[in-house]
C-alpha cells in the first residue's frame, strides 16, 4: 500500500536531500524541527516538535497509518530518542532513519527503526565501488537512481498470475526477452538470487515477489504477460 504523507524530522542538509527526492511520491510533506529558528529560515513550512512530545498534535493532524517517518536529526542520541519515542507511540509506522556509524545503526534498529541508512557505511561502499568496479557502479547507479531508461522493479505474483505454481527453472525465460529476473522473494520473506539451487527448485506461490530489471516498455509487457503488477509493501521489512 502506498503511503500518502512523509514526516521529515530534522532541518538540515540530509532532510533537504530526502525532501528533494521523495516529495513527488507523497501527497504531503511535513517537516519538523527542534529549533525555533528553523521556522523562519527554512525553505519549507517547518513545525516545531519536542522530544518529550506525546505526539498528540501530530496524531490529530496526520493520518499516521498512511504516513512514513524520516528521522534525520544530526545528533545521533536525539535521533535514537526520537525513533524510540515514535515507535512507542506508533507501532505500525514505517520509520526510516539515518545513522552516522555502525554502532548507532545497531542502536537505531534496537530502537525500532524500520530501515536504517548508515551514512559512513553507505558513502564508503560507494567510494570503494567507484574505485574497484567503476563500470558496474555506473550501471547500477543509473538503474537505481533512474538516470537511464533502464529500471529495476518488483512484481508481486498473485492468484491470477500465469507463473503461479510453476517451478522457476521450468519457466522459459527467453520468452520474456528484454527483462532479467534477478531475484525472487518468497512469501516467507527470504530473498533468493534467481540462479541459486534453492531458487531454481522453488515453486512460485501467490505472494512471491520477483525483482526484475528492464526497460519500462518491456517491464509493462512482462506485467501483462504474467498477469501481475508492480508492487510496494513495506510490511516485507520485518522489524
Amino acid at each position, binding site marked *: 500500500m502506498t503511503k500518502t504523507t512523509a514526516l521529515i524530522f530534522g532541518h538540515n542538509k540530509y532532510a533537504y536531500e530526502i525532501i528533494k527526492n521523495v516529495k513527488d511520491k507523497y501527497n504531503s510533506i511535513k517537516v519538523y524541527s527542534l529549533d525555533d529558528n528553523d521556522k523562519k529560515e527554512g525553505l519549507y513550512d517547518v513545525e516545531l516538535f519536542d522530544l518529550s512530545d506525546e505526539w498528540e498534535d501530530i496524531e490529530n493532524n496526520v493520518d499516521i497509518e498512511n504516513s512514513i517517518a524520516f528521522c534525520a536529526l544530526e545528533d545521533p542520541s536525539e535521533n535514537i530518542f526520537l525513533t524510540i519515542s515514535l515507535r512507542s507511540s506508533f507501532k505500525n509506522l514505517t520509520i526510516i532513519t539515518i545513522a552516522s556509524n555502525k554502532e548507532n545503526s545497531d542502536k537505531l534498529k534496537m530502537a525500532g527503526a524500520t530501515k536504517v*541508512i548508515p551514512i559512513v557505511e553507505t558513502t564508503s561502499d560507494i567510494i570503494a565501488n567507484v574505485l574497484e568496479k567503476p563500470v*558496474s557502479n555506473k*550501471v547500477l547507479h543509473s538503474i537505481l537512481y533512474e538516470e537511464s531508461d533502464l529500471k529495476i522493479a518488483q512484481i508481486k505474483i498473485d492468484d491470477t498470475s500465469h507463473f503461479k505454481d510453476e517451478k522457476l527453472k521450468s519457466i522459459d525465460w527467453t520468452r520474456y526477452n528484454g527483462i532479467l529476473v534477478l531475484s525472487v522473494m518468497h512469501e516467507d520473506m527470504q530473498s533468493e538470487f534467481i540462479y541459486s539451487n534453492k531458487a531454481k527448485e522453488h515453486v512460485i506461490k501467490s505472494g512471491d515477489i520477483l525483482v526484475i530489471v528492464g526497460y519500462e516498455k518491456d517491464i509493462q509487457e512482462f506485467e501483462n504477460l504474467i498477469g501481475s503488477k508492480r508492487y510496494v509493501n513495506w510490511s516485507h521489512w520485518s522489524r
Partner: protein
Amino acid sequence: MIKSLILDAAYFLNTSKKYQSFKNFFYNILENDKCKYKRYIDIFMILLIFISVGVLIREVKHHVNDYLMFFSNYVISIIFFIEYMLRLWVNSSVSEIIVKRAEHDTFLLREVNLYKAFKEIAKVKLSYMASPKAIIDLLAILPFFHELRLLRIFILFRVFKLFRYAKSLQILSSVLATKKFEFFTLGIFAFVVIFISSVLIYVMEGNRADSPVDTLFEALYWAIVTISTVGYGDIVPVTSEGRFVSIIVIIAGIAVLAFTTSLFVSAFTEKLEEIKEIKTIENIAKLKKFYLICGYENVAREVARKLSKSGHNIIVLDEDTQRVENAKLDGYTTLNYNPGNKESYEKLNIDMKKQLKGVLCLRENDVDNVYAALTIRSLNKDVMILSLLNNDANRNKLEFVGINKIVYPQELVGLITKELVGKPVAFEVIHELRSEDSDVIIDEIGITKRIVENFPTVGDLNNKHYSIVLLGVYKHEKDRFYFNPLDSTLLEAGDYLLVIGYQVYIKEFEKYLHTRVHDD
C-alpha cells in the same frame, strides 16, 4: 693557446648533452638512492668486500687459490680504484668551475684567470678526498700493493666501505652523529681518566719488583682494561696506592659505561620516529601501485578497510597525530604529513604517474580536501582524485581544482530514500549485490583479445551453464551499456561483461573465459 684550448674544452663539456647525461648516469648509480640500478651496484660492491675479507681470513692458516688471490688483490682493488676515480669525477664539475670563472672574468672585463679556476678545482677535489668516506675508499685500494705485507691489513678498510652501500649503517652513523658533542665530552673524560690513572699506576708500581706493571704501555693497557670493566686480571696492582687508583678507575669506568649506554639509548630514542619514517618511505617507494588517502576520519577508515580487504595497498597521510595513531593501529602505512603541503610529497618521494592508483581526499572538511587536491593537482595533472564533499555549496570549488569524482553523502542519503520508498525489495537486492559480505555479487569481467578469439559473440559465452546472469555488456569506446544483449551481439577487446552470480561461480566462469582454447 693552451688557455683557449682549455676554455673551449670546458665550454664544450659543460654544454654537451651527451657528456652530461653520461656523467649523470655514473652519478646516479654511485650516489643517487632513487636510482634503481644503484641497489645492484651496492650489492655487487658488498659482495666484493666480503670476498676480500673471506680471502684474508682463509689466508691466515690455509693456502688460497692463486686465481682467487689474484682476484682479491688486483681485480677488486682495480674495481675499487675505478669506483674511487668515478666518485672523484662525479663529485664536482671541473668544466663548470672553469666556465664560471671565465664568465665571471669576462663579465668584469678581465682576462680569464685560469690559475684561480684550478685553485678552486683543487680545493673542491681535495675537500672531497679529505672526507672520511673518500679516505676509506682510498685505503681500501691499498691491498693492491700486497707485496708490502702490512698493507694487507688494509683489506679491513674495505669493511668500512659497507657504510657507503648499506643504508642501515648510514642511519646508524647519522644517529650517532646527532650526539657528536656528548660523545666528544665522553671521549675527553675517558681520555683524562685513562691518562691520569695509567701515569699514576706507573708511578706507584713501575719501580716495584713484584708488580706486573713494568712499562707505561702496560700501565695504559691496565687502565683501559679496568675502565672498560673488562678486568682480565693479568695485570693487578700490588701496592695499596695502586689499589686505591684501581678503585677510582673502576668507579670512573662505571660512569663511562653508564654514560655511553645512555648516550646510545637517547640517540636512538630521539631518532626512532625518524628512522621509522625513513624505513616507511623506503617501503612505499617499493610499492608498485597504491591508493593515497588524505585524512583519516570515519569515511576514510571504512574506505581504507574495504580497499585493503580487496588487496589494495593503502598509504594514509594526515597532519593530526591522533588520527595518524588511529590509522597505524588499524594497520595501515601512515605518515604524519600534511596532505595540503607540497613538501610532504617531496619527502614521500613517489612516482605519482606510475605508483598512484588514485588519491582519496576524505577529510570531513571541504577546505582541507580542496587544499590537498590542489596541491596534488599542481604536482600531477593526470592522477585520479576522489573527494568527499561535506557542503554542497562548495561543490564548484572542488570541481574547479580538478577533482575527478565527488562523493556527497547527503545526496546519497536522498537518493537512497527515494529508491527505498519506491522499491524496497528491489533496493535490498541491489544493496545485497554491492555488499562486501554477500555471496552473490555483481562483477565486471574485462574482455581481452584472447577472450574475443574464443568467444566472438554473447551467445558463445555459455554463462547460463555457470549459473551467471549477464546483466549486459559495456562498450568502453562508445561509453554505452547494452543491457541483456542478444546472443548475436559481437564482443570486442576492451568491453566489459557485467555479471551477477555467486562469487565462486563468477570466478569459475572467468577462469573458463581465460583458459578456453579453440576446439576446432
